[in-house]
């Protein structure tokens, strides 16, 4: 087995803490990509209101609305797990860290996500 294969093996460990860590990194990367797109769109204002409106128009398509719903989920996971990490760094809730991830980050996060995603879906994708 190559040294790389041995190194990569540890990421196969399916422990909740490691899963939370990977989720935090993955959502962070996705948000970084979104941030660039966001700044790029805002930047269109420099070319006048017409150009900005034209740029915004592309985001009104149903497929972009679905991406927007995915963005909501990404933000919720990243934010809630971020609070979990801050608490853990202060030494709070170490014996409950699994429950904090699955119950609070994923479970509670899913509730907020549904509360936001369902109206978003019905109002934008479903109606069109």
């Amino acid at each position, binding site marked *: 087995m190559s040294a790389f294969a041995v190194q990569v*093996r540890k990421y196969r460990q399916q422990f909740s803490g490691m899963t939370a860590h990977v989720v935090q990194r993955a959502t962070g990367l996705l948000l970084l990509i979104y941030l660039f797109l966001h700044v790029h769109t805002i930047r269109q204002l420099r070319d006048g209101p017409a150009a900005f409106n034209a740029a915004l128009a592309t985001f009104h398509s149903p497929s972009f609305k679905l991406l927007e719903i995915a963005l909501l989920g990404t933000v919720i996971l990243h934010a809630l797990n971020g609070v979990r990490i801050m608490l853990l*760094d202060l*030494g709070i809730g*170490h014996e409950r860290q699994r429950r904090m991830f699955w119950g609070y980050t994923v479970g509670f996060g899913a509730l907020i996500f549904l509360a936001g995603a369902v109206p978003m879906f019905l109002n934008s994708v479903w109606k069109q």
Partner: protein
Amino acid sequence: MTVLDALFLVQREQDPSLSFRCACRVGMCGTCAMSIDGVPRLACKTRVRTLGTAVVQVAPLPNLPVVKDLVVSLEPFFDQWKRTLPKFRPRDPESKTLAVIPHTTAYARQTPSKRDCITCGACYAACGVKSTSGEYLGPAAVNRAFLRLADPRDIAVAERLAPLNDERGGIWRCHTQFNCTAVCPKGIALTDSIARLKRAMLFPGRFEEL
């Protein structure tokens, strides 16, 4: 049958050149730690049946240099271990009186669950930070330093805090992945020790509480 028994069987019947380390066979020496199905465990404490797989994959511990087959060199592990001054430094080495440690102190509360480290290197091998940073102390060394710092009889505080507070190798590198806590064969809450030290450094006025 444990994984260690299986390895002996393979060595006896199939490949006499197979190398692995073991000593006590009862999970108290920490010699037979290896990666079993991708998770660092003690071979003598892991039963093949409980793994639930038809083929058991064994590999040397990650994050440590391989000597041969399943044998790794624990030298980097103990190099980091030594950096945090693992030895007891008493206030008065000549003292003949027994120290009294009240049950209410942090040391008395924390020690029973955290002093059982057998230096097997499982936490060091499971740590995702350790795999990218050669300078990181690793969970076991930090836990050892934590116990020494919590000990009211010990005086080497500043010397231990220096490597712990180090920007490149200190406790701030910990990303609370909990892999060390999950794999520790002795069930030590290593991430908890690291977080307690972080908190103690952030709020020095409450250092005694650890």
